């Protein structure tokens, strides 16, 4: 009955799914283009890379594990402040260790929050993530002795990377640093997505009721990915603090949480590249539209979002995949 020609080789098939495609290699090569062709856009490119890393962190929980969150700026901001505070209050200016520290702090808070998060679903989940985000914002505002309150944290000073590369006016170092951060974060996420743990997460997303019936402690999975995601978001926040030498309450606010979800859905969830593409499109569109008309640009952003939903319900990457006739994965 089994036809050898039709029967797939399971090992080869699974291996192929984790293999780097030429598109991916071309994509990452293309991220170097701004250095040569758009040198005056490097500060923007740097902030796009940071937003993209943040979007990837949200994709891990939202796209791969099905946890819808409206409060992820909480971890972005905690990372931003952690990196800022060790520099401005404790004089620790070395950037790489600062990044790690911020990731650890955000991850620790994420781990604690995960006990709440994995026990609720749907609207309650949305509102609890939103509530925790707002709570953190108010807390940071109240703790102005530590955070600087609404004026923002002052006196952040970041040493040159490896003691050599100073953050310059053109944003060359900032972009190289943010891009490296994004790439490492992406590699880690890609590894997770193509691991057995990534498969388990997709299982949770696809059918949370079935998971216990195959013997899975799915809440442990969810806590683990939530913690990892929080740490990544924290590192994204720390990158923003270090590349701009600023940290403000705006890193924690609801708008940032909403924006990142918007970027992710815009690009397409559950694809890693969706977050990167969404962040790039959203921020470039905003920059260009705001350049044309600083007062009404958000009309066109709103228009774009509505248009994408009506024409490409699976996000831009989903739409592209469909156009290319590829199997929708």
């Amino acid at each position: 009955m089994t036809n050898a020609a039709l029967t797939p080789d399971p090992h080869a098939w699974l291996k192929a799914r984790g293999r780097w495609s030429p598109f991916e290699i071309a994509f990452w090569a293309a991220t170097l283009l701004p250095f040569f062709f758009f040198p005056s856009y490097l500060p923007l490119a740097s902030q796009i890379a940071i937003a993209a890393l943040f979007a990837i962190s949200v994709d891990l929980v939202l796209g791969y594990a099905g946890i819808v969150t409206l409060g992820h700026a909480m971890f972005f901001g905690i990372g931003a402040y952690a990196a800022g505070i060790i520099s401005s209050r404790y004089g620790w200016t070395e950037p790489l260790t600062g990044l790690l520290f911020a990731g650890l702090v955000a991850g620790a808070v994420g781990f604690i929050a995960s006990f709440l998060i994995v026990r609720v679903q749907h609207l309650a989940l949305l509102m609890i993530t939103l509530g925790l985000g707002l709570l953190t914002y108010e807390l940071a505002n109240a703790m102005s002795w530590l955070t600087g309150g609404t004026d923002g944290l002052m006196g952040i000073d970041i040493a040159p990377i490896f003691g050599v590369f100073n953050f310059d006016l053109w944003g060359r170092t900032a972009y190289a640093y943010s891009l490296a951060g994004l790439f490492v974060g992406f590699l880690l996420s890609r590894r997770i997505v193509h691991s057995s743990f990534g498969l388990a997460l997709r299982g949770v997303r696809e059918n949370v009721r079935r998971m216990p019936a195959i013997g899975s402690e799915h809440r442990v999975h969810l806590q683990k990915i939530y913690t990892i995601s929080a740490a990544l978001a924290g590192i994204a926040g720390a990158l923003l603090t270090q590349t701009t030498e600023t940290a403000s309450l705006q890193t924690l606010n609801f708008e940032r949480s909403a924006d990142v979800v918007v970027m992710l859905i815009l690009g397409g969830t559950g694809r890693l590249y969706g977050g990167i593409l969404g962040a790039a499109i959203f921020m470039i569109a905003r920059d260009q539209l705001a350049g044309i008309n600083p007062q009404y640009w958000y009309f066109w952003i709103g228009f774009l979002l509505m248009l994408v939903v009506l024409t490409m319900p699976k996000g831009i990457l989903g739409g592209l995949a469909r156009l290319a006739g590829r199997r929708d994965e």
Partner: protein
Amino acid sequence: MFKKTALAALGLGLALSTSAYAQETIKVGLILPYSGPFADAANQLEAGVNLYVAKHGDTVAGKKIEFIRKDTGGPNPDVAKRLAQELVVRDGVDIIAGFALTPEALGAADVATEAKKMMVVMNAATSVVTEKSPYIVRTSVTIPQVNYVFGKWVAEKGGVKQAYTLVADYGPGLDAEKSFAKGFTEAGGTIVGADKTPVANPDFSAFVQRVADAKPEAVYIFIPGGAQPAAMGKALADRGLTPPNVKLFGQGELTHPEALESMGDTANGIITTFHYTLERDDPMNKEFVDGYHAANNGRSPDLFSIGGYDGMHLIYETLKKTNGDASGDALVEAAKGMAWQSPRGPMSIDPETRDVVQTVYIREVQKVGDKLQNVIIDQIADVKDPNHGAAQ
């Protein structure tokens, strides 16, 4: 013939080598929160800028002034920094200006220093702003500037012994509370209670009730402009906390025209401190206000408008003084000590701190005709920010 060509060539070479001198336009980058919750501040500030340009032409010292506008979306220092970088490296601006909010100014300060560009702060009112870069000049106001002397005035001339303070819980509010309390207590007054309201506060009734419970002789209030003053005024009126039952003091935002209209007669008698008074009787101010009304559908100028207007004045006058040299060092040098008559009254730039020095007006809400307005009852000339001196 030959001589002429050589001269021309020489001139060209000179022009190329010092393009900053010879270029035909001067680019000014405006960094403001054009969108988001502070969009109104950006609009009013820009209207002030536009009015100045409309009145004085877009050419100064033989150079055409060109604006490039950038939106921060709110108090985002990271965005403000990026926009300042882009303005410098991509758009090649000569001057960066705007900055309605302190975090915006703090974010961009490093860029001004590194790029050696003059940075004109047209609003952001925290003392520390001008200390963040030697290229920053401020044309607006600082919160301690108007509130420290006001605290003294309330105790000395207002005859108040005890006051309760109620301020918005953010940088400017805390600054105001601190400087008012300092002036007030130094002049012999006592602060009997202090509360802070959340910045995004839809309902003041709980805080006002706390104030009412304390039955203070006087209340000092600082809240951001916009919707809050009217809401605060009404909450106070509900508790009977209106003059003459209790003396009400505050910074000028509390009694802006829209707020007065919404509060109605209960606002009568509120005393505020400010650097700009819409109704101040002065021909220059009248011309400014009339021009503003005409250009903005009858909307009145406010503190943002005057900050933008005087900011442009500073830019124009310094350019005249440097003969069109837009390098940051030259402009800042020219700005130091510059003094002029503004619609707000006499003002100058402190050569030491590059911060604004001006007259502080004490105003009382009174009924003039059938309209409530702020009437100047006292004024204190040449007030500097008290914090800069203290730091030295």
